[in-house]
């Protein structure tokens, strides 16, 4: 069965082709059904692949199942095949993309039902699913890059889906341009890896990695440079500082797109890449530190912006940026499976939140401003309940999915083994503050939308009577996603519960196998005697084999910076603190402020003055870029045009023409047209020639 895994990519590709070629002539129902059915078939294939992979892996030494489809680029040393890689990581992503993708396709059949570009929408959506699957299934960086660019293209097409409005088209361009900045990092990172390891294939890279690294032919900056360049790509695709600016504007696209591409799947591609290439990142501890810091900073800044946004989708967009920051924080501290865990739970609750907001926007007839909503709970109960569950999940309330993944991240940060002194403590405080703000802004948007008194505009009341619940094609995905958001966390229960944790051992094959521990051991050797390791008593490595063993021990017995007796008690207390903070933010702050005492918010805004404006204006980052990059860039381009192009280039071209013109002007008098003059020239020529030959 595993040989047929390419079908997962083929189905949506066929859907996109058929809809693209014949969609205009098909009925809306037919093209919507086709688009959704293809993704559903893809999901079934993915499910079958999952089960056959499990049975295959049971009898195999390597976790990697390679499927070479055809030779692709064979030039000299560069040998690239169109090859797929099936391992726990790619299987998990494949299931997520096709599963959530199918639900969102289904939702779109309802949401887009009044749109003129109905079949075009499904073309892009199916193409996106196919490209995303290429991204996660490709067995080499080149194929991954094809998917990487492909999803970027689909993102661009879908953000500017309603291109008749110039604003949407500009948002699409912004997303594309900002992503290009990151993509060049991915390319350079891939070049560095190829240059040093002579391969782009993941399996070959992982196979050689520890031996090449241990043979010390690689200079120490190589993994660091590769990791940082690849991470630059991740900051572009996954909207991290300083390239996060495109994601909030990407909300110009239809809401299902926001849910599928800009929340659940595409933006997690950066996290996927870091997890996929985790040996490279593990080999560069400084890169891990930088990633953790960027992740934490992004999480924090995006959360502060989300606190004051009024557009329901903008809040969710900044929330996505913030949650992606959490994922990178997990990657940075080396907890790759936790990052993937958060990718999964975030996909469930954030897709549900976006689809819920789409349902609200649909009901309010394209109104996105939460200031004129309120009291929607009794008109759309299903949307209300599913939104509530997802809000609680993202806020981190026990026992919903967000709690488990976020708590695991916080715990991994608190117990991070690092040479960077008090970094774990600072990062943990930033993260817990972000978690607190997350609970508050999600509570704010939830209470403002669904509870309190209706604040609908006069225009709305006159024209639409009252809001209505969405059709079943839209509520069904909401219910499924809310269920997943509620129970998804049980995949990865924390250690203190002593319950079986499904996700960690499953993903360990891809993200933390023996291979990686060997490298960790080597790093331990290099940092022999460093302060951080001395503190935890893990630096005493005598030889390489022992180093690996110690690293494993260290992974199991690290302690937080504050300890309450045993590790287990500490973990429980940390979890309780985060739940208590989230509950306080939700019920103690957001609920009274945004349901009963609505007037108090105005006072709060004025008393917080500059801070409020800073948050409302998104830290002026867009303005900063405008003045630092856009304006100088435009000026430079203008200067190049006026000086270099108009003076220099045009000068050369016109100069050649002018010189020839003058030459022509100079010799023109000889051409009189009088026959006698010509005869004279002939004669003179003959005389001169004769004279010369006689003189010689």
């Amino acid at each position: 069965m595993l040989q047929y895994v390419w079908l997962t990519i083929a189905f949506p590709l066929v859907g996109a082709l058929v809809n693209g070629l014949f969609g205009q002539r098909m009925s809306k129902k037919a093209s919507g059904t086709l688009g959704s059915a293809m993704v559903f078939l893809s999901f079934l294939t993915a499910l079958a692949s999952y089960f056959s992979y499990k049975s295959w892996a049971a009898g195999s030494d390597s976790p990697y199942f390679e499927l070479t489809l055809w030779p692709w680029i064979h030039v000299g040393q560069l040998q690239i095949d169109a090859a797929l890689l099936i391992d726990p990581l790619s299987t998990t992503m494949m299931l997520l993309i096709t599963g959530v993708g199918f639900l969102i396709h289904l939702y779109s059949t309802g949401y887009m039902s009044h749109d003129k570009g109905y079949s075009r929408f499904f073309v892009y959506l199916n193409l996106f699913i196919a490209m995303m699957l290429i991204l996660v299934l490709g067995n080499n960086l080149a194929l991954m890059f094809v998917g990487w660019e492909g999803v970027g293209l689909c993102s661009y097409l879908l953000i500017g889906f309603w291109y008749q409005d110039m604003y949407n088209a500009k948002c699409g361009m912004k997303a594309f341009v900002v992503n290009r900045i990151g993509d060049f990092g991915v390319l350079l990172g891939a070049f560095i890896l190829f240059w040093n390891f002579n391969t782009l294939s993941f399996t070959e890279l992982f196979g050689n990695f520890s031996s090449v690294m241990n043979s010390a032919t690689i200079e120490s900056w190589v993994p660091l440079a590769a990791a940082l360049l690849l991470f630059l790509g991740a900051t572009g695709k996954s909207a991290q500082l300083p390239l996060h600016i495109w994601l909030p504007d990407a909300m110009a696209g239809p809401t299902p797109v926001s849910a599928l591409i800009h929340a659940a799947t595409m933006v997690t591609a950066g996290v996927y890449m870091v997890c996929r290439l985790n040996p490279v990142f593990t080999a560069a501890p400084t890169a891990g530190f930088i990633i953790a810091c960027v992740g934490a900073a992004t999480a924090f800044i995006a959360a502060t912006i989300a606190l004051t946004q009024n557009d329901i989708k903008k809040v969710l967009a900044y929330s996505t940026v913030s949650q992606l920051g959490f994922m990178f924080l997990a990657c940075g501290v080396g907890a790759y499976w936790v990052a993937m865990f958060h990718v999964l739970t975030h996909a469930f609750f954030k897709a549900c939140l976006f689809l819920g907001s789409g349902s609200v926007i649909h009901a309010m007839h394209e109104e996105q401003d939460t200031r004129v909503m309120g009291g929607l709970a009794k008109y759309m109960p299903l949307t209300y309940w599913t939104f509530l569950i997802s809000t609680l999940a993202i806020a981190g309330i026990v026992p919903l999915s967000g709690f488990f993944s976020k708590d695991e991240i916080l715990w991994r940060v608190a117990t991070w083994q690092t040479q960077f002194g008090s970094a774990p403590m600072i990062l943990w405080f930033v993260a817990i503050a972000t978690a607190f703000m997350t609970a508050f802004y999600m509570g704010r948007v939830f209470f403002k939308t669904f509870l309190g008194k209706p604040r609908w505009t006069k225009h709305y009341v006159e024209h639409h009577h009252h809001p209505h619940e969405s059709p079943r094609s839209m509520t069904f995905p909401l219910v499924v996603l809310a269920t997943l958001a509620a129970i998804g966390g049980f995949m990865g229960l924390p250690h203190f519960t002593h319950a079986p944790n499904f996700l960690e051992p499953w993903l360990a094959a891809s993200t933390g196998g023996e291979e990686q521990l060997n490298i960790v051991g080597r790093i331990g050797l290099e940092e022999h005697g460093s302060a951080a390791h001395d503190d935890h008593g893990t630096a005493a490595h005598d030889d390489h084999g022992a180093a690996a063993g110690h690293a494993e021990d260290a992974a199991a017995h690290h302690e937080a910076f504050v300890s309450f007796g045993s590790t287990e008690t500490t973990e429980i207390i940390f979890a309780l603190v985060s739940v208590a903070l989230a509950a306080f933010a939700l019920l103690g702050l957001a609920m009274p402020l945004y349901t009963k005492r609505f007037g108090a918010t105005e006072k709060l805004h004025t008393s917080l003055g500059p801070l409020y404006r800073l948050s409302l204006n998104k830290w002026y980052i867009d303005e900063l870029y405008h003045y630092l990059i856009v304006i100088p860039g435009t000026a430079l381009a203008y200067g190049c045009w006026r000086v270099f192009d108009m003076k220099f280039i045009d000068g050369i071209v016109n100069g050649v023409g002018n010189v020839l013109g003058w030459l022509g002007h100079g010799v023109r008098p000889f051409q009189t047209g009088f026959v006698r003059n010509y005869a004279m020239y002939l004669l003179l020529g003959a005389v001169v020639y004769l004279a010369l030959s006689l003189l010689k």
Partner: protein
Amino acid sequence: MIPLVSNSLILSAVLFTIGVVGVMIHRHPVMIFMCVELMLNAANLSLVAFNKQHYAENWHAVDGQVYAFMVIAIAAAEVAVGLAIIVSLFKRRARVDVDEVNQLRN
């Protein structure tokens, strides 16, 4: 024998000079044409004279004469074309003056 050759060459030079001067000073195409013919004939005379000088007593060697016939044949063709142009010029305008025909167009 030598005087014959050198006298022929002197005559040839005189004829050629008359032809050149004629081309330079005449304005009527027919006159210019005749002067050109004069120059051609001067050249023919030189060719024959040089043949005489070069081959001396060998009566079978007639390279110069053959060249002269070639020149005469080509001159005949040239006359045909040239006269045709002159005739068509006459048809276009009453008075024919080469100085007035100094433009290819109009």
